[in-house]
């Protein structure tokens, strides 16, 4: 940190003004230039202190721009701000960003430099670039749009540059609940929060600025309970922060008001710090559910719309006042004032008192409020009432204004200035109220929209509610705090009183003003009078839109882009609306108000994403055996959220070779496979079989305990929904398995029927997917491998035939042992409690490996089951396949009066004989492995579009068959067995023969072999 020297923080600091500490400085750069700020400065105040007004270029015409505001509504002074290369943030509002030591700021949307920008040629071309011009041209020649016009438009558009490095910062997230949420920490918000908090209810108070105080940042001369207003605000904030029932959040913007008082806040935690702690998140998202909300969001000052109103040095009066009274910075030495509202006078008076020359106050009105003219006279300020500013001079900073009486046509009088401050009045910040779906009303007297009918449990208070006068605001705020506290259950609500005195009391600051174009920017004017600064929308653009038939304000907005810049029209919307209304000859409410949508100010994606990045983006589910597979060299595949062992390459093997070896080994000896991810549901109760009869096409009541069966589950519309083996453990207890991906939805589906369609059945469902880890042991030696470890189960073919289930003990731990096979080999599925899985696996594998068995993954499982024609739901079927299509008609019980899907299955389209049916395909050349998803045709010479009969659903090299094999769905497929069909590929056409779906061990002898 540099040595404290007053002048280093800028030549335009005003001695004795502002609230920053001169000794505490911070160094930063702007476009490479080293500058010094005071701690607490915003980028804007620091630049102004250093005499820099030129801060940016506009979007379309690249006009030079200075800072307009001292707050979140800033349209002009947008910069790229970085801490380091990876922590670069484009489009930062200089009026909001606090300076920290080491900060680098750069101007945007200019080349080669801010002062000399080639893009400014657009300004000269602006007559050709009127609103919506691009809809009318760039159409010839057709190809030029994509090759020439669009790339150039795109390159010219945009503001800052997107970050190009991954973001090293963290973002945090927090759900919060409170009785009362108060948005805005000005006098109103603080008073309301205090009143609510003192009654003991839980309160969250948030404000977007670094310190509470709201308008007290610029308003001076206010005393609250006998002390300086801003001091009172800080003390009150501290008092609230000490209370256990209150959370006080600064630098926290309420950006979205959602259903049922759900409000999103973003807290900027480190963007103002020179060296954040490593554990600090950059931002924190608060998702607040409040029983009541108090909106104290204040009002936003509007600029005046007049010719060339956009030169650097022209800014809102309240901004100039903030820069002076809070930051101690003079925005000029000779500051003109242009007003349609009384509050500009107070700004002028403050500046004048600080020793800044005020050459003139130009007021469009016949006169300002009571006392202001005499106060101006006392300070020696000339006031021109019923006058307008009709031109400004200066290139990179305003140097003069030209004023003339309203309605006159003379050239007016030129007055030299180095800054111009303006106020057209105040727009209540009803954004959040409107987001809450409240209905706004039109206050014709003051040309403003105010909160009308509420749609949620909230209240607007203070300036955002149109309330004028500090004492009135305070009373309203206290009353609202009390009301909301009572509404949320507080009984003992103390009466608070806050006494306010204002130097400007009695002067109506928040009312009056004008919306729309001013003198010199009327309908006949060709001047550029900016309505939306950032998007370069002028008064005449709005009129042009109306002339072209854009009569809805939404059309005007979209045609001109008014209000669609990064400030979302905070300063421009009312002007745009007023000009459109005037042009249409309608009243403002007849033309309508554009909808306010979240966010109030832009929110980083990071803040919204919060913790859900990297490893926390989506849970990775691993089976209890995962480390065993990892140790043995598995390559994994993603199946839903699960990681499943895909194949186990040995040194030098590629996937193909590994799978071929695994496939051979399983059929020759045996293999171990992790089947843990299959869903499992324990179905318990006297009506369990009856329930399963309804849920599956098969009949379960006749299944004996100890036996199992393959089941097919349909949706009501008759299509296959899931499948799996179901074992009956006891009369009243079934162990149901589902597909891996189907586990959650099958349970949901079953619960749905159980709870709402068949609630009289006595049966309960419990997910046991993760209770049991499943080691499948498949192959001729399967029984030999596991038998020595098993206690209490007779595993002979006679005692335990194919499709049996037994409960017993393996390796000393409980097991549910299934004899079943998805390979066509003798097989077992060993279910063990998951925490024991690794130990059991290690015991089994030690023996199996010695016997020549292998580990195999999902790929080998796929090949082996395809060799047997066993389907995989989701691969060989999709949501359009019936059991008949899939060759599973045998699984549909003919005797049952009802099951889910029985009606859907009988509809006319589902019983067509030419539906796509599952068949086998063999390529004429056995070496060719078909592409899964490849389409099948009868006539390979047909012109495009070709008639496609179906597609290949599964296709593999089968080492066991010594050839490629495939499953496919083919229209009328079963009738076509033996026919030759064709698979047209980009480079060739492959001849295939339609076959049965079973390629290996057609008799099925190996199941018991």
């Amino acid at each position: 940190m540099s040595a404290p020297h007053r002048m280093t923080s800028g030549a335009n600091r005003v001695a004795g003004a502002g609230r920053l500490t001169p000794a505490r400085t911070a160094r930063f750069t702007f476009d490479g230039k080293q500058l010094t700020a005071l701690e607490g400065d915003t980028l804007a105040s620091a630049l102004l202190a250093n005499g820099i007004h030129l801060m940016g270029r506009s979007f379309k015409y690249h006009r030079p721009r200075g800072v307009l505001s001292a707050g979140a509504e800033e349209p002009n002074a947008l910069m790229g701000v970085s801490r380091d290369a990876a922590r670069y943030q484009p489009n930062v509002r200089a009026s909001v960003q606090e300076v920290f030591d080491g900060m680098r700021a750069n101007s945007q949307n200019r080349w080669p430099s801010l002062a000399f920008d080639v893009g400014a040629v657009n300004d000269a071309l602006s007559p050709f670039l009127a609103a919506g011009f691009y809809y009318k041209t760039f159409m010839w020649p057709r190809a030029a749009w994509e090759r020439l016009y669009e790339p150039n438009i795109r390159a010219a558009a945009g503001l800052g540059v997107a970050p190009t490095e991954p973001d090293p910062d963290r973002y945090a997230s927090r759900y919060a609940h409170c009785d009362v949420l108060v948005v805005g920490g000005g006098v109103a918000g603080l008073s309301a929060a205090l009143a609510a908090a003192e009654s003991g209810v839980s309160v969250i108070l948030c404000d977007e600025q670094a310190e509470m105080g709201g308008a007290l940042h610029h308003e001076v001369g206010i005393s609250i309970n006998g002390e300086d207003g801003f001091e009172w605000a800080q003390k009150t904030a501290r008092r609230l922060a000490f209370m256990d029932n209150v959370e006080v959040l600064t630098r926290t913007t309420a950006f979205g008001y959602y259903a049922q008082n759900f409000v999103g806040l973003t807290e900027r935690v480190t963007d103002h710090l020179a060296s954040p702690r490593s554990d600090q998140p950059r931002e924190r998202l608060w998702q607040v559910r409040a029983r009541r909300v108090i909106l104290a969001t204040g009002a936003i000052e509007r600029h005046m719309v007049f010719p060339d109103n956009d030169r650097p040095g022209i800014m809102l009066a309240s901004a100039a006042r903030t820069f002076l009274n809070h930051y101690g910075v003079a925005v000029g030495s000779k500051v003109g004032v242009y007003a349609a509202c009384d509050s500009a006078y107070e700004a002028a008076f403050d500046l004048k008192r600080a020793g800044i020359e005020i050459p003139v106050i130009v007021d469009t009105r016949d006169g300002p409020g009571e006392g202001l003219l005499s106060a101006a006279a006392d300070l020696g300020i000339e006031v021109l009432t019923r006058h307008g500013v009709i031109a400004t001079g200066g290139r990179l900073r305003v140097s003069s204004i030209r004023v003339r009486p309203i309605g006159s046509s003379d050239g007016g009088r030129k007055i030299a200035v180095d800054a111009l401050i303006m106020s057209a009045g105040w727009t209540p910040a009803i954004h959040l109220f409107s987001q809450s779906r409240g209905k706004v009303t039109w206050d014709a007297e003051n040309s403003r929209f105010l909160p009308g009918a509420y749609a949620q449990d909230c209240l607007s208070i203070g300036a955002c509610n149109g309330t004028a006068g500090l004492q009135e605001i305070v009373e309203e705020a206290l009353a609202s705090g009390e009301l909301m506290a009572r509404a949320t259950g507080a009984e003992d609500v103390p009466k608070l009183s806050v006494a306010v005195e204002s130097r400007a009391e009695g002067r109506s600051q928040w009312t009056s003003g004008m919306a729309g174009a001013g003198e010199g920017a009327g309908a006949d004017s060709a001047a550029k009078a900016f309505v939306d600064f950032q998007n370069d929308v002028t008064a005449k653009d709005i009129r042009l839109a109306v002339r072209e038939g854009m009569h809805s304000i939404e059309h005007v907005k979209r045609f001109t882009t008014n209000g669609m810049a990064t400030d979302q029209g905070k300063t421009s919307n009312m002007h745009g609306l007023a000009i459109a209304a005037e042009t249409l000859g309608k009243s403002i409410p007849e033309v309508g108000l554009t909808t306010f949508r979240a966010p109030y100010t832009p929110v980083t994606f990071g803040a919204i994403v919060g913790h859900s990045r990297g490893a926390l983006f989506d849970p990775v589910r691993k089976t209890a055996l995962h480390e065993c597979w990892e140790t043995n060299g598995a390559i994994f595949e993603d199946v839903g959220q699960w990681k499943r062992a895909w194949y186990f390459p040995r040194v030098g093997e590629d996937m193909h070779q590994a799978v071929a070896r695994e496939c051979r080994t399983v059929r020759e000896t045996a293999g171990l496979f992790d089947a843990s991810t299959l869903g499992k549901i324990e179905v318990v109760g006297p009506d369990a079989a009856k329930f399963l009869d309804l849920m599956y096409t098969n009949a379960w009541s006749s299944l004996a305990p100890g036996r199992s069966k393959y089941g097919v589950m349909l949706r009501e519309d008759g299509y296959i929904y899931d499948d799996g083996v179901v074992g009956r453990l006891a009369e009243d207890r079934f162990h149901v398995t589902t597909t891996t991906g189907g586990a959650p939805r099958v349970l949901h589906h079953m619960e749905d029927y159980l709870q709402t369609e068949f609630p009289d059945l006595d049966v309960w469902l419990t997910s046991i997917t993760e209770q049991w880890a499943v080691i499948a042991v498949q192959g001729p030696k399967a029984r030999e491998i596991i038998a020595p470890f098993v206690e209490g189960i007779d595993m002979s073919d006679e005692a335990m035939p194919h499709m049996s289930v037994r409960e017993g003990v393996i390796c000393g731990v409980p097991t549910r042992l299934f004899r079943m096979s998805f390979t066509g080999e003798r097989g077992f599925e060993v279910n063990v409690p998951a925490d024991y899985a690794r130990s059991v696996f290690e015991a089994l594998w030690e023996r199996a490996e010695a016997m020549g068995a292998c580990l195999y993954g999902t790929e080998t499982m796929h090949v082996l089951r395809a060799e047997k024609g066993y389907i995989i739901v989701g691969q060989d079927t999709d949501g359009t396949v019936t059991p008949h299509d899939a060759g599973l008609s045998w699984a549909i019980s003919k005797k049952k009066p009802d099951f889910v899907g029985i009606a859907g299955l009988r509809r006319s389209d589902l019983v067509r004989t030419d539906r796509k049916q599952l068949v086998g395909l063999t390529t004429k050349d056995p070496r060719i492995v078909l592409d899964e998803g490849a389409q099948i045709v009868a006539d390979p010479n047909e012109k495009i579009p070709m008639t496609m009969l179906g597609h290949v659903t599964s296709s593999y090299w089968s080492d066991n068959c010594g050839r490629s094999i495939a499953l496919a769905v083919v229209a009328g497929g079963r009738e076509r067995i033996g026919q030759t069909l064709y698979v047209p590929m980009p480079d060739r056409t492959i001849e295939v023969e339609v076959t049965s779906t079973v390629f290996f061990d057609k008799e099925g002898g190996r199941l018991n072999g």
Partner: protein
Amino acid sequence: MLLIHCPYCAEERPEIEFRHAGEAHIARPDAMADLSEEAFQGYFFIRDNRKGEVFERWRHIHGCGRFFNAVRNTITDKFLATYEAGKPKPDLDALKAQKGTSA
């Protein structure tokens, strides 16, 4: 995120604990096997999709696991009532009147 009163948990809970489950009070026909195509279409596909108060099903899937019914206004998204599955449709006019006075 909506706030939904679960009639079984007797509490309002955040929407992400729940799963919407479509229109309520569509009874599964008794004689499913004999259902005509038209009747099946009506049962399975045709939906009220009303603008205004709808009867709908929710499941407190990440809570108590129960299915229940709700009356919600699809213009405001406000709930007028929630009630246990299997209970009859509440009287809409009475509900609206009751909400009207308490709001």
